[in-house]
């Protein structure tokens, strides 16, 4: 953080702008106050001048002269001078006021005006009013404005002092606000730098003030968390693809090499080629399954969404897998729902997901066990559950089994590519559904459900809700664990 950066900071500029605005407003206010006060004082003086004139004007000459002499006695300091001049400007009676000749020449009558008398020492400021009497003499009434003038000066000085304090406080405030946001932005920038450099465990600092910057930081932290999860997943997928494909490729290569070395007849070569073809087909199927998962995850299949009947899909899937259950001596039980379970979705994908789950359940259920499939429409959600009497899935693996290629130690020996449940998870996510894995004591129960939209017809999972239904699948298994 450098002080020279300060003028470029938004918050500093904002503070400065506010300061300028308030400064201008205060200056205008002070000016207005000053102007109004001054006008008020002058107005009062002018009223007084008119009043004095009105006292003197009806008097006859003798009476006037007498009053003026008396006035001279009562006001020797020329605070309120009243003087009678003859038309040529000579003082006839009253205060010892000498009106400068420059003013005398162009003196207005019956209206107040301001004039300066260059008295010995310092000039004196007056406001006066002249009246021409019928005799041609001029009666001049004035008032010393020194006190009013001093008051104005005090006012101006106070305004200037106030202004300077305001400027200093304002600047200091702007610097403080700017420096605070600069410190926080610098902290955020530093964190982002570290994230860019590859440390995805870093998070933006949150002050706990819950202001704009905190809220932004929290949203971004959420995004980084999701990115981190995805990065882990991608990395895991890459590792797993490399690992899982190396085994069949090695087997393929070994088979071909053995044929090259040992095969003597066309039949033996043919058998080796057939084996290689089967292996290659398996590999291609694994790739196809991977591509399918990406396709589903990208939402490309959302175009196939119609009003699907979940109960029909469940019935069809159970019927399809019945011979497999029979062959394994496992009871495949279907608990039908009386009403159709309508939802927006792709029946083909739903069928595949249900099929994968049944296939999985059958695979892990020992002879004599039961797999139960049922749909439901309860508590404002529709969905289905598949329960088996197999060994169940340990708590710590319930998240992991949904990842591509994840195969627990327990099922290393069972055939499969480890992509079935990943596809299920992708389909569930595409439909905005929630997947939960729980204990069925014994065995495990997978529940997949979708909240029914409250307003009229369903939008299905196609719509991204602000609450981020995409993340629910991540949160739900954790809830199961707790």
């Amino acid at each position: 953080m450098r002080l020279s950066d300060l003028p470029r900071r938004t918050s500093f500029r904002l503070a400065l702008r506010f300061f300028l605005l308030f400064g201008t407003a205060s200056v205008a206010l002070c000016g207005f106050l000053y102007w109004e006060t001054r006008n008020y004082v002058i107005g009062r003086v002018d009223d007084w001048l008119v009043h004095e004139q009105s006292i003197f004007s009806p008097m006859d000459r003798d009476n006037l002269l007498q009053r003026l002499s008396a006035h001279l006695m009562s006001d020797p300091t020329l605070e309120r001078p009243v003087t009678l001049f003859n038309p040529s400007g000579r003082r006839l009676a009253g205060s010892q006021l000498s009106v400068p000749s420059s003013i005398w020449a162009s003196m207005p009558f019956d209206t107040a005006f301001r004039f300066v008398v260059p008295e010995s020492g310092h000039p004196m400021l007056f406001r006066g009013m002249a009246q021409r009497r019928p005799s041609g003499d001029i009666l001049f009434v004035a008032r010393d404005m020194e006190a009013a003038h001093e008051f104005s000066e005090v006012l101006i000085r106070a305004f200037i002092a106030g202004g300077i304090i305001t400027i200093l406080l304002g600047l200091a405030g702007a610097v403080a606000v700017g420096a605070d946001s600069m410190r926080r932005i610098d902290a955020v920038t530093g964190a982002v730098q570290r994230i860019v450099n590859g440390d995805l465990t870093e998070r933006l600092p949150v002050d706990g003030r819950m202001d704009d910057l905190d809220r932004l930081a929290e949203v971004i932290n959420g995004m980084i968390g999701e990115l981190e999860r995805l990065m882990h997943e991608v990395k895991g997928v890459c590792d797993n693809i490399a690992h899982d494909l190396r085994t069949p490729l090695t087997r393929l290569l070994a088979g071909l090499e053995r044929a090259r070395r040992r095969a003597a007849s066309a039949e033996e070569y043919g058998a080796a080629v057939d084996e290689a073809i089967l292996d290659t087909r398996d590999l291609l199927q694994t790739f196809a399954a991977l591509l399918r998962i990406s396709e589903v995850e990208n939402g490309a299949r959302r175009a196939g969404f119609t009003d699907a009947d979940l109960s029909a899909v469940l019935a069809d899937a159970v019927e399809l897998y019945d011979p497999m259950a029979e062959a394994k001596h496992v009871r495949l039980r279907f608990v039908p729902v009386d009403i159709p379970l309508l939802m927006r979705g792709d029946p083909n994908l739903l069928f595949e997901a249900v099929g994968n789950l049944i296939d999985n359940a059958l695979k892990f259920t020992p002879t004599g066990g039961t797999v139960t499939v049922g749909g439901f429409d309860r508590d404002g959600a529709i969905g289905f559950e598949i329960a088996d009497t197999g060994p169940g899935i340990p708590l710590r693996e319930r998240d992991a089994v949904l990842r591509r290629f994840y195969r627990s130690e327990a099922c290393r020996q069972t055939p499969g590519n480890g992509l079935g449940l990943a596809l299920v998870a992708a389909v569930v996510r595409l439909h905005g559904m929630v997947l939960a894995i729980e204990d069925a004591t014994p065995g495990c129960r997978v529940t997949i459900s979708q909240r029914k939209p409250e307003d009229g017809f369903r939008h299905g999972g196609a719509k991204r809700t602000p609450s981020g239904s995409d993340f629910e699948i991540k949160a739900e298994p954790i809830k199961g664990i707790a």
Partner: protein
Amino acid sequence: MTHVLVVEDDRQTAAEITAALNDHGFAVDHAATGREGLLKAAAETYDAIVLDRMLPNGIDGLGVLSTLRAAGMDAPVLILSALSAVDERVRGLRAGGDDYLTKPFDFLELTARLDVLLRRQSAPQPRETMLRAGKLEMDLLTHTVRHAGRLIELLPREFLLLEFLMRHVDQVVTRTMLFEEVWNYRSVEPTNVIDMHISKLRRKLDSEGSETMIHTVRGAGYRLHAPE
């Protein structure tokens, strides 16, 4: 000899398809662009056309297809596409396609489907109420099946499975075709489960000691062969 036009822009894929179709006993012409495909289709009479959905330079697969249909050519068209979404398939079929195959595919799948299309073309099936194959009889109205007079009890799905096999008697039907036509779902077919349904059906059909009527075609699917 069956004459097939392959419209496919990728040289290598085209060469593979041509080789596979030749091996199957078809004569094959190849066109690399939609334009060339249209010119060839206009100049020659083909029994079937294999058409890539995505073609370079102007006219794409669907464009070729609608032009062909507008010109009154009714040869069956099988669309090949890398796009697997359901509505892509619907668009292809709506434009006049007869079948839709998603890449990558097995060549056995391709030839099996072409066989079905060609058969359908040469012998349009009337609305019949009885299907017969050798000693096998299926009554579509009463939903009963008899083999050499013996009544065979079938589950509804087994009935549909056998009906499809009987409609394509002596032809190779792939598991994908069965899954799509009998179960009516379009996704990755669970191979082993379909095999189990077939073996259950087989057990019900075949009497003691006789040779099975549903033959497994290695790497492809099944063929119903019912001797007289």
